[in-house]
Protein backbone atom coordinates (compact mmCIF):
# COMPACT_ATOMS: atom_id res chain seq x y z
CA UNK A 1 0.00 0.00 0.00
CA UNK A 2 2.75 2.42 0.86
CA UNK A 3 4.28 2.19 -2.59
CA UNK A 4 1.03 2.91 -4.33
CA UNK A 5 0.26 5.82 -2.02
CA UNK A 6 3.66 7.28 -2.65
CA UNK A 7 2.75 7.47 -6.32
CA UNK A 8 -0.48 9.22 -5.59
CA UNK A 9 -0.28 12.20 -3.21
CA UNK A 10 -4.04 12.52 -3.19
CA UNK A 11 -4.43 9.03 -1.80
CA UNK A 12 -1.91 9.83 0.88
CA UNK A 13 -4.02 12.81 1.75
CA UNK A 14 -7.18 10.81 2.10
CA UNK A 15 -5.76 8.00 4.18
CA UNK A 16 -3.82 10.23 6.48
CA UNK A 17 -6.71 12.51 7.16
CA UNK A 18 -8.92 9.64 7.95
CA UNK A 19 -6.82 7.65 10.31
CA UNK A 20 -5.44 9.14 13.40
CA UNK A 21 -4.76 8.66 17.05
CA UNK A 22 -3.51 5.14 17.14
CA UNK A 23 -3.10 4.84 13.49
CA UNK A 24 -1.21 1.83 12.36
CA UNK A 25 -0.88 -0.11 9.20
CA UNK A 26 0.29 -3.51 8.23
CA UNK A 27 3.66 -3.67 6.59
CA UNK A 28 2.41 -6.46 4.41
CA UNK A 29 -0.64 -4.76 2.89
CA UNK A 30 -0.30 -4.35 -0.85
CA UNK A 31 -3.69 -3.64 -2.40
CA UNK A 32 -6.27 -0.89 -2.58
CA UNK A 33 -8.81 -3.05 -0.78
CA UNK A 34 -8.57 -2.22 2.88
CA UNK A 35 -10.28 -3.38 6.02
CA UNK A 36 -10.09 -0.41 8.35
CA UNK A 37 -10.87 -0.55 12.05
CA UNK A 38 -12.41 2.19 14.09
CA UNK A 39 -13.02 1.72 17.79
CA UNK A 40 -15.48 4.38 18.90
CA UNK A 41 -18.51 6.08 17.45
CA UNK A 42 -17.41 9.56 18.44
CA UNK A 43 -16.48 12.75 16.64
CA UNK A 44 -12.75 12.20 17.05
CA UNK A 45 -13.10 9.01 15.03
CA UNK A 46 -15.66 10.34 12.59
CA UNK A 47 -13.26 11.02 9.75
CA UNK A 48 -13.45 7.54 8.17
CA UNK A 49 -17.20 7.40 7.94
CA UNK A 50 -17.35 10.99 6.74
CA UNK A 51 -14.98 9.96 3.96
CA UNK A 52 -17.08 6.93 3.17
CA UNK A 53 -20.39 8.78 3.22
CA UNK A 54 -19.04 11.55 1.00
CA UNK A 55 -17.46 9.09 -1.43
CA UNK A 56 -13.85 10.13 -0.83
CA UNK A 57 -12.60 6.56 -0.67
CA UNK A 58 -14.14 5.68 -4.01
CA UNK A 59 -12.94 8.96 -5.51
CA UNK A 60 -9.36 7.94 -4.80
CA UNK A 61 -9.85 4.32 -5.83
CA UNK A 62 -9.79 2.87 -2.35
CA UNK A 63 -12.11 0.01 -1.54
CA UNK A 64 -12.41 0.52 2.20
CA UNK A 65 -14.56 -1.55 4.48
CA UNK A 66 -14.99 0.17 7.82
CA UNK A 67 -15.25 -2.27 10.69
CA UNK A 68 -16.16 -1.40 14.25
CA UNK A 69 -14.09 -3.35 16.74
CA UNK A 70 -14.07 -2.90 20.49
CA UNK A 71 -11.24 -0.66 21.65
CA UNK A 72 -8.17 -1.99 23.36
CA UNK A 73 -7.11 -5.60 23.11
CA UNK A 74 -9.79 -6.73 20.58
CA UNK A 75 -8.77 -4.05 18.07
CA UNK A 76 -5.08 -4.71 18.59
CA UNK A 77 -5.64 -8.44 18.13
CA UNK A 78 -7.60 -7.84 14.93
CA UNK A 79 -4.81 -5.94 13.21
CA UNK A 80 -2.07 -8.20 14.52
CA UNK A 81 -3.98 -11.19 13.18
CA UNK A 82 -3.87 -9.62 9.73
CA UNK A 83 -7.63 -9.15 9.41
CA UNK A 84 -7.18 -5.43 8.97
CA UNK A 85 -4.62 -3.15 7.36
CA UNK A 86 -5.46 0.07 9.20
CA UNK A 87 -6.70 0.89 12.61
CA UNK A 88 -7.80 4.09 14.25
CA UNK A 89 -7.61 3.70 17.99
CA UNK A 90 -5.89 4.85 21.12
CA UNK A 91 -2.13 4.44 21.14
CA UNK A 92 -1.86 2.65 24.48
CA UNK A 93 -2.93 -0.83 23.39
CA UNK A 94 -0.79 -0.75 20.27
CA UNK A 95 2.22 0.44 22.23
CA UNK A 96 1.83 -2.46 24.62
CA UNK A 97 1.79 -4.79 21.62
CA UNK A 98 5.10 -3.28 20.49
CA UNK A 99 6.57 -3.86 23.91
CA UNK A 100 5.55 -7.51 23.65
CA UNK A 101 7.55 -7.79 20.44
CA UNK A 102 4.91 -7.24 17.75
CA UNK A 103 6.58 -4.98 15.20
CA UNK A 104 4.38 -5.44 12.13
CA UNK A 105 2.51 -2.21 12.76
CA UNK A 106 3.58 1.40 12.95
CA UNK A 107 2.00 4.73 13.81
CA UNK A 108 1.74 6.98 10.76
CA UNK A 109 -0.47 9.74 12.08
CA UNK A 110 -2.59 11.05 14.90
CA UNK A 111 -5.94 12.74 15.41
CA UNK A 112 -5.53 14.04 18.93
CA UNK A 113 -2.75 14.14 21.46
CA UNK A 114 -4.87 14.65 24.55
CA UNK A 115 -7.57 12.69 26.32
CA UNK A 116 -10.86 14.33 25.44
CA UNK A 117 -12.82 12.17 27.86
CA UNK A 118 -14.78 13.41 30.85
CA UNK A 119 -14.71 12.21 34.44
CA UNK A 120 -18.17 12.12 35.97
CA UNK A 121 -18.45 11.99 39.75
CA UNK A 122 -20.82 12.62 42.61
CA UNK A 123 -21.38 16.28 43.55
CA UNK A 124 -19.10 16.07 46.58
CA UNK A 125 -16.13 15.41 44.32
CA UNK A 126 -14.82 18.85 43.40
CA UNK A 127 -11.35 18.09 42.05
CA UNK A 128 -9.44 15.19 40.51
CA UNK A 129 -7.24 15.01 43.63
CA UNK A 130 -10.24 13.85 45.63
CA UNK A 131 -10.37 10.72 43.47
CA UNK A 132 -6.98 9.56 44.68
CA UNK A 133 -7.29 6.10 46.24
CA UNK A 134 -10.89 5.69 45.13
CA UNK A 135 -12.37 3.26 42.64
CA UNK A 136 -13.06 4.63 39.16
CA UNK A 137 -15.30 2.97 36.61
CA UNK A 138 -14.12 2.88 33.01
CA UNK A 139 -15.91 1.92 29.83
CA UNK A 140 -13.32 -0.67 28.91
CA UNK A 141 -9.92 -1.85 30.05
CA UNK A 142 -7.03 -1.73 27.63
CA UNK A 143 -8.09 1.25 25.55
CA UNK A 144 -7.15 4.85 26.19
CA UNK A 145 -9.87 5.31 28.76
CA UNK A 146 -7.84 4.47 31.82
Amino acid at each position, binding site marked *: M*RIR*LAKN*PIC*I*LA*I*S*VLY*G*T*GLAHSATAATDKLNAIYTARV*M*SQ*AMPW*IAQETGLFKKYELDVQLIYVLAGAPAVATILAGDSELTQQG*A*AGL*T*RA*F*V*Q*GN*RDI*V*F*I*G*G*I*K*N*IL*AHSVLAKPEIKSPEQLRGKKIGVTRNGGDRL
Partner: protein
Amino acid sequence: MAGIGYDYFLAKYGEGVLNLPDRKGLEFVISQSAKSNPKAKGQTPELLKLLEPSILDELKKSGFIDKVKK
Protein backbone atom coordinates in the same frame (compact mmCIF):
# COMPACT_ATOMS: atom_id res chain seq x y z
CA MET B 1 -24.99 18.02 12.69
CA ALA B 2 -21.80 16.15 11.76
CA GLY B 3 -20.41 19.36 10.32
CA ILE B 4 -21.00 21.20 13.58
CA GLY B 5 -19.30 18.45 15.53
CA TYR B 6 -16.39 18.33 13.12
CA ASP B 7 -15.84 22.08 13.31
CA TYR B 8 -16.06 21.97 17.11
CA PHE B 9 -13.55 19.15 17.31
CA LEU B 10 -11.12 20.86 14.98
CA ALA B 11 -11.36 24.15 16.90
CA LYS B 12 -10.84 22.49 20.29
CA TYR B 13 -8.44 19.67 19.47
CA GLY B 14 -7.06 20.70 16.10
CA GLU B 15 -3.53 20.97 17.38
CA GLY B 16 -3.25 17.20 17.62
CA VAL B 17 -4.78 16.53 14.23
CA LEU B 18 -2.32 15.14 11.72
CA ASN B 19 0.52 14.91 14.19
CA LEU B 20 2.23 11.78 15.31
CA PRO B 21 1.22 10.47 18.73
CA ASP B 22 2.87 12.47 21.50
CA ARG B 23 6.25 11.06 22.50
CA LYS B 24 5.70 11.74 26.20
CA GLY B 25 2.42 9.85 26.02
CA LEU B 26 4.11 6.87 24.45
CA GLU B 27 6.85 6.99 27.07
CA PHE B 28 4.19 6.99 29.76
CA VAL B 29 2.52 3.88 28.31
CA ILE B 30 5.88 2.12 28.07
CA SER B 31 6.70 3.02 31.68
CA GLN B 32 3.32 1.75 32.85
CA SER B 33 3.84 -1.47 30.91
CA ALA B 34 7.24 -1.86 32.54
CA LYS B 35 5.55 -2.26 35.92
CA SER B 36 4.23 -5.64 34.89
CA ASN B 37 6.28 -6.50 31.82
CA PRO B 38 10.08 -6.69 32.07
CA LYS B 39 10.36 -6.39 28.28
CA ALA B 40 9.26 -2.77 28.53
CA LYS B 41 12.08 -1.71 30.84
CA GLY B 42 14.61 0.52 29.12
CA GLN B 43 12.48 0.79 25.97
CA THR B 44 11.85 4.06 24.17
CA PRO B 45 9.59 4.96 21.22
CA GLU B 46 12.74 5.12 19.08
CA LEU B 47 14.03 1.71 20.12
CA LEU B 48 10.62 0.21 19.46
CA LYS B 49 10.40 2.08 16.12
CA LEU B 50 6.85 3.09 16.93
CA LEU B 51 6.61 6.09 14.68
CA GLU B 52 6.78 6.33 10.90
CA PRO B 53 6.77 10.03 10.03
CA SER B 54 7.36 9.90 6.27
CA ILE B 55 3.72 10.14 5.18
CA LEU B 56 2.97 13.05 7.49
CA ASP B 57 6.19 14.75 6.45
CA GLU B 58 5.09 14.57 2.86
CA LEU B 59 1.72 16.04 3.76
CA LYS B 60 3.39 18.87 5.66
CA LYS B 61 5.60 19.69 2.71
CA SER B 62 2.57 19.83 0.46
CA GLY B 63 0.92 22.44 2.70
CA PHE B 64 -2.16 20.29 3.12
CA ILE B 65 -2.02 20.13 6.91
CA ASP B 66 -1.90 23.89 7.30
CA LYS B 67 -4.85 24.12 4.95
CA VAL B 68 -6.90 21.65 7.01
CA LYS B 69 -6.27 23.48 10.27
CA LYS B 70 -7.26 26.93 8.98
